[in-house]
């Protein structure tokens, strides 16, 4: 029987097997701990350090400014817009994703011909590489060649005198203040819907069939069944879907970076994109870090709140 050299040398009455287990546990956990410390902990610590200093990408020595970066941000117009946009962007996405995911999951629970194809198509946005999908959308929203505009022109909603959407040949999706926000929300919903659908679908599957059938026998119609039985029983898992969607939207900037770069005139600027533009592209690391840190209370607060709600609804059901 071959044993590792370490364990045969261990003495002092401690069983070898137990010592082996401890070593194994340390060995298995180490990469994960290292990963978190180096890729999450370190940048986080660095961000706090930067936010308290005046530090630029080209500069030499950081200069302590205390809460100066934060204070100057509060009076900054762009920051106020970004803060507001972040919430508009996140909550619009959240509401749309929740409603659509519940509808999709409800439909996917039923048996119909070609269900596998529909399920495949619904999951597709999730499996496509993000940047690739977004570039596709960039083309969909093109100011001149947008296929959406072309369709609208073909059905007569756009581009002719007196058309409901205006006489101009294009809608300029990413150039119009309101439409730009609508566009980025739309694309973000497209990206996050599959995950939420899968989560809600798992939740629906976990509701015992007997309970649903019982409610049908107890003369509850579709809507009453949905609001009085299905949704309450689904609530713990819906909260998980909310948490994921919130975190993935609030702290993310890729849709906005690729589609609008925060424009036009900062109307789609959100905190993560502003942090990137200020800190990395603009070179003002301290100010960028301060912008990023403003997201912390929202993210941490929302996560803590939702996890508490999840625990409470588990206890009561």
């Amino acid at each position: 029987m071959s044993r590792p050299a370490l364990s045969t040398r261990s003495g002092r009455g401690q069983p070898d097997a137990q010592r082996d287990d401890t070593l194994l546990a340390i060995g298995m956990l180490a990469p994960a701990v290292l990963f978190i410390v180096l890729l999450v902990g370190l940048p986080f610590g660095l961000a706090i350090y930067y936010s308290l200093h005046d530090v630029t990408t080209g500069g030499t020595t950081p200069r302590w400014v205390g809460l100066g970066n934060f204070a100057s941000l509060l009076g900054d117009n762009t920051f106020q817009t970004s803060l507001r946009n972040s919430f508009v962007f996140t909550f619009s996405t959240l509401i749309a994703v929740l409603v659509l995911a519940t509808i999709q999951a409800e439909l996917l629970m039923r048996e119909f011909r070609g269900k596998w194809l529909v399920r495949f198509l619904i999951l597709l946005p999730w499996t496509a590489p993000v940047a690739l999908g977004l570039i596709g959308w960039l083309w969909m929203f093109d100011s001149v060649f947008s296929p959406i505009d072309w369709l609208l022109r073909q059905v007569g909603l756009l581009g002719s005198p007196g058309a409901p959407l205006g006489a101009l040949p294009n809608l300029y999706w990413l150039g119009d203040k309101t439409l730009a926000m609508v566009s980025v929300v739309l694309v973000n919903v497209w990206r996050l819907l599959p995950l939420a659908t899968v989560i809600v679908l798992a939740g629906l599957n976990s509701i015992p069939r007997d309970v649903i059938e019982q409610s049908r026998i107890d003369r509850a119609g579709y809507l009453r069944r949905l609001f009085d039985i299905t949704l309450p029983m689904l609530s713990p898992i819906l909260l998980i879907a909310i948490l994921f969607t919130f975190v993935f939207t609030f702290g993310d900037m890729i849709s906005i970076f690729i589609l609008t770069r925060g424009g036009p005139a900062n109307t789609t600027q959100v905190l993560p994109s502003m942090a990137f533009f200020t800190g990395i592209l603009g070179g003002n690391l301290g100010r960028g870090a301060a912008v990023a840190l403003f997201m912390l209370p929202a993210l941490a607060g929302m996560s803590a709140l939702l996890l508490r709600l999840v625990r409470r609804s588990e206890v009561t059901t």
Partner: protein
Amino acid sequence: MATLQVRDLHTHFVGTGSRRAARAVHAVDGVDLDVHDGEFLVLLGASGSGKTTLMRTVAGLEKLTSGEVLIGGQVVNGLPPNARNIAMVFQSYALYPHKSVYKNISFPLEAIRLDRNATKEKVEWAAQLFDIGHLLQRKPRMLSGGERQRVALARALVREPNLFLLDEPLSNLDAKLRHTARHELKKLHHRIGITTIYVTHDQVEAMGLGERVAVMNHGKIEQIGTPSDIYREPANTFVAKFMGSPAMNLVKRGDELLGFHPENFLPVGQFEPHAGAARFSFDVSGVEDLGSDILLYGSLPEAAGEEVIAKLPARLAGSIEVGREHDFFVQPALVKRFDPSSGKRLDAVAS
């Protein structure tokens, strides 16, 4: 309150893929049933016999393939469950886990839009019927199995359903509780008199509860009758083998199968055979003492290989010697004759 009629009912489950029709399962395969107003009918069968599917088709939870279901004389084929005014208790009780016991019981009342006071009155009536008044504010997860069952029953009876369907409601209870619950159910049915269909695989339950019992096998009803008819006059060998514990002995003699219950298989000497009694030589190979009775296991030299069981009062234990042949008999009226190939009764079934 209503009658239930089922006419040539078929419920098939169609498989998927290219051989759909070939893979169809005929869960209910041509059932005719007449349940009188206020009757307590038990559907008895092994798992997979189609008894639950038959009940679910009556409830409208499964789509029938062909035939008719009539509740109170009206065809309900196309109606969804919520339009049939039926009540059902599932094996799992299917309580709404996020609602209190009170809200569970009042749930069916909300559909008929009773006002608050009437609802409260009804719920309290149903709760005292099952002695669960003290549990009304609890959530289902805080209840024991027996309490959950009573809540499910209260919820089913809180409005006046046309039909009361019970799908093995006692199978999740422990043996002792099951005994009491059976008694309670019977008393309850006497008191409220709603037409009841009760599905079970437990023949003791069926015998104890049913005014009539329908024995199901492979989606068909093998026999329907009072418990004593089913037990004493089985229509075929399937029913004979299914009922009783231990079941009826079946012995081939000539071109007939002779069927007799173990308790009617008696030793000559201790009991007096009437004229025309069927006499057997019984080779006893083992004894099992059940306390009040003893079971004798053995075989008949004339039909080797077939195990035959006799059930005698325990006081006779001393008179039977194991490993020897004894003279046994069955009184003439207690021997049932079956056709060995079709399994059907040869002598007329008194019904």
